[in-house]
Structures are given as C-alpha cells and as structure tokens.
C-alpha cells in the first residue's frame, strides 16, 4: 500500500525501575536525546513527533518533550491507547513516513508508575444513603468485587484460565514456570527493573494477587521511557554506511482493535485482535512465525503469556502448553520469548512498553545485546496489548548483510 519503506534509525530505553529523582520529562528527554544520538540525528531533523503518557493527566506530552529538548514547530501527535500507547506512537510516526509526508519521525512513550498499585478498579466508596442507579448497567453501588472483578491481575487470570478450560493442561504451576523463565531471562538485562532469579517455590509461595497470579507473576509497575527515531527508506540511502548498517527495517507495523464476538464485553477478548494483527503482520512482512529469532510479547501477567504463544501462532492452535513445556520460549529454545525479562521482570511503564519491546528486538538484530544477545538474530517480533482493546505488532528485520 505505502510507497515508502520505514526503518528504525535510532532507539533507546532508560533504565526501568524507581526513578525518585527524575520526573516524567527527565525520563522522556533522556530516552529521546539518546535515541536521536543513537541514530546520528538531532531534533532539527525530525518532521513529526508522536508521544504518549497515560498517568500524567492532561499534559500534552509531545509538546512537553519538545519544550524540554527541542521546539522546532513540527506536528505533534499525543496518543493514548492504554498499554499499546507506545506502539501507537510508533505507528503514527511510521504512517507519516509511509505516506511520504515525513523523512524522519520520532516516537516516545514515558511513564512514572513506581508504587502505583492496582491500575484499575478504584476503592469502593461507601454505599449511598439512598440507592441511586448510575452508569450504563444501572448499578445502585460499586460493582467491582460484587459482580466479578475489575482488577487487571484478575481479568488476565480469567483469560489464562479460559484458555486452560478450552485446551487443558494449564495450571498454577505451569503459569508460575512461565514467570520463572522471564525472571531468569531478566538476570542478563541491566536495564530491567528486577533482575533476580526466582525459584518456582518462591514464585508460587509469594503473595497471591488473583489466583493463579502471584505478585511476581504480575507486571512490575515502574518508571521508564523509550524512544525511537524512524526514517524513510529513501532518506536512509543518503545517510552514512554506519547508519544504514545499524538501521532496522520495520517489515510490518500493525494496529488492531477487538472485533465484536460473543462475551467480548463481559471478559475482554485479547485473543482475536492479536491473532488478526499477527496474521496481517506476517503477511505484510512476508515472514512466518518459524522465521522469528526472538519475540517480545505482552506478558502483563504470566497467564497472558500463555495465550499469546497461540495468538501469535508461535505454536499450533491449542498447543501453547506443549509449546512452553518443550522449552521453546526459553532463550535457549527455538523461539526465545521475552529475553528482556518481559513485563513481569523488566517492568511495565505502560506507555513506554510498546517502544521498549521494539528497542529490545532492535538491540539483538544489531548484535549489540551483550551477554543476553540471541546469536545471529535477524528477524524479531514485538507485540503489545492495551485493554479495551488495542493490539500492536511490529516485525523487525536486520538491515546488514
């Protein structure tokens, strides 16, 4: 469809974790300037900026970033798509390049989330002095905890259990094993919020949040930012040999929302929109799941990682349990998944996640991932889900011979 190829020229994430001394703009600026430097360009080269930040209120984050590190008058797009916000920013900048409107684009996601606790399902207010119906379901008081759960660890627990019910073989221990893998992977990632190996007993014995998800099986709230500089294929040809060698081709950039299906307004369906996005991405990139050297997928909870093996077609339909048990998704396996440590251990500063996972993949495709390098990686996939719902899938390919 588009006439221009899109490449990632530079990208960077900050360290994920608690940044007590740094505010949202400190983190966003650090990632932005580092990504520009990584690409060998400056703010003056950018033709568009797209940025997202979910917890900062009404602040126009894209303009705030410009005010912090370079006001050049370019169009600024503030995007919001829950946990898929970063991927959405990337896609907006990429579309502008694809359409021929921009040579260079900048995408940034940033979040201050350390110590935030549960992100959905607010405190229950005291019931009213007289019952009064509110909302589109006409409840007379708070529903969370009275008619099911609103909290994410509970919602995604049900999503994993639903898969277990459909196909069998998924139990507490299996989900905890998935978490053990990601915590183990994180020990090689110096930018991860947590990089501690955990035993199965430690994971299963930790504080239960929503069965079967214990605390280490939930994504880690933390602070962090990620940024990426995109460039058109035409422009890239005019840049240095070194820039061309390190550039990563965006072979597919897909964003989907959830199509209507029975039950999707009762329990979010994170499966169909991911499967549709994956299918479109493989088609656009001309690669298949078997070609992937590594995958960063949205393991917001251990129960979520399992279903996405299937949704991204890394295994046969219904085969996610066997796929995991075969060892395929460990960094030594046939399709390493979340070698960064994933959201459970690397951390999940929500608006940054959809760019941070792209950074991780690029890092490997450039052969710059140090001790955690997946040797010879040439093709990778980055996936995010934001509830209610948005799914971003990017397929990235090495540009060096």
């Amino acid at each position, binding site marked *: 469809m588009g006439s221009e190829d899109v490449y990632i020229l530079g990208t960077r994430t900050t360290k994920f974790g608690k940044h007590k001394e740094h505010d949202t703009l400190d983190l966003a600026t650090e990632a932005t300037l580092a990504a520009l430097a990584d690409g060998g360009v400056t703010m003056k080269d950018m033709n568009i900026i797209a940025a997202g930040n979910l917890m900062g209120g009404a602040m126009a984050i894209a303009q705030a970033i410009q005010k912090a590190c370079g006001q050049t008058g370019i169009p600024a797009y503030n995007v919001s798509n829950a946990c898929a916000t970063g991927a959405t920013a990337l896609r907006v900048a990429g579309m502008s390049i694809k359409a021929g409107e921009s040579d260079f684009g900048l995408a940034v996601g940033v979040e201050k989330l350390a110590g935030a606790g549960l992100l959905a399902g607010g*405190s229950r207010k005291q019931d009213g002095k*007289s019952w009064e119906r509110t909302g589109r379901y*006409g*409840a007379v008081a708070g529903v969370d905890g*009275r008619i099911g759960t609103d909290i994410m660890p509970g919602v995604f627990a049900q999503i994993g259990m639903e898969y277990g019910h459909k196909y069998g073989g998924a139990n507490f221990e299996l989900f905890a094993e998935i978490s053990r893998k990601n915590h183990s992977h994180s020990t090689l990632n110096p930018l991860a919020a947590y990089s501690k190996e955990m035993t199965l007993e430690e994971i299963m014995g930790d504080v*239960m*949040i*929503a*069965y079967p998800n214990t605390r280490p099986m939930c994504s880690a709230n933390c602070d962090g930012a990620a940024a990426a500089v995109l460039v058109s294929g035409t422009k890239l040809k005019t840049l240095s040999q070194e820039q061309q060698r390190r550039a990563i081709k965006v072979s597919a950039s897909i964003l989907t929302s959830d199509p209507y299906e029975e039950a999707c307004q009762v329990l979010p369906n994170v499966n169909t929109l991911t499967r549709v996005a994956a299918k479109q991405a493989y088609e656009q990139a001309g690669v298949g799941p078997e070609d992937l050297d590594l995958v960063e997928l949205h393991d917001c909870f251990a129960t979520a990682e399992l279903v996405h093996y299937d949704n991204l077609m890394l295994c046969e339909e219904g085969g996610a349990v066997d796929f995991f048990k075969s060892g395929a998704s460990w960094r030594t396996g046939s399709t390493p998944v979340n070698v960064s440590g994933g959201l459970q251990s690397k951390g999940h500063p929500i608006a940054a996640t959809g760019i941070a996972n792209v950074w991780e993949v690029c890092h490997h495709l450039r052969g710059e991932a140090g001790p955690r390098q997946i040797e010879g990686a040439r093709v990778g996939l980055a996936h995010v889900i934001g509830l209610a719902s948005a799914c971003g899938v990017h397929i990235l390919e090495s540009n060096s011979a």
Partner: protein
Amino acid sequence: MSEQIPFINYLVLGDEPHLVASECTACGARFFDRRNACAGCSGTDFKSVDIPTQGEVRAFTIVAFAAPGIEVPFVSAIVDCGGTSVRTNIVNVEPSPDHVKLGMPVKLTTFPIGKDDEGVEAINFGFEPAA
C-alpha cells in the same frame, strides 16, 4: 416487608429471579448494558430476552488482593449460560482452587447486600455450585 430493588438493571427479582439481556433483533448479539446500537451489526432495534439461570464456569479467578473497601477473597468468574456469557461472583463455595473448578455447573442465586437510609433493600445475584 421492606421494599426490595435489584442491585443492577439486568437482574429481575420475583419468584424466579433471572438475568435479562438486550438482544439485537438483526444479528442476535446480546448485551447487559444500556445500548445505543449493536456492537456486532450497528442495528438499533433490541428485544429483551431472559438468560438461563443454569450455566457452567468457563473461567475464574480468586481475587485475594483488591482495592480498599472490597472484601477478599472472592471468586470472580465468567459463566456460560446456554451460550450467553455472564460476569459474576461464585458464591456459597469456599474460595479455593480445591473447590472452584473450570467447567463446574452453577446456578443463579440472589442475596441482599444492604439497606439504604429509607429501608430499601438492594438484592444482588451470584452463581453457586449446582447440585
């Protein structure tokens, strides 16, 4: 006897308490909330349908940690009631994976959650293990 009202709009009280949904007359999609149009086909004509009071647990979680003011632990579940999915708590069962099972048959039950200052009692629903 004090006045009783359903906790939520789609619960019908009376001798045989049950849930009701808005069903799109064009495509049959069912919704529990107030609708402007159908998410499946954009149709705007709906009829009210009764939902079976028996079902099976398709997914569940046992919430052990929730926002302040919410009693834990409780069992949250998605129950398949004859092809219509319902979000609910599973009640009258020990909140433990030894007692709540995927696929287990359950049936609708109702219970009071409290009275307001005028003495009006709100009645909520849940699903409990079916014998």
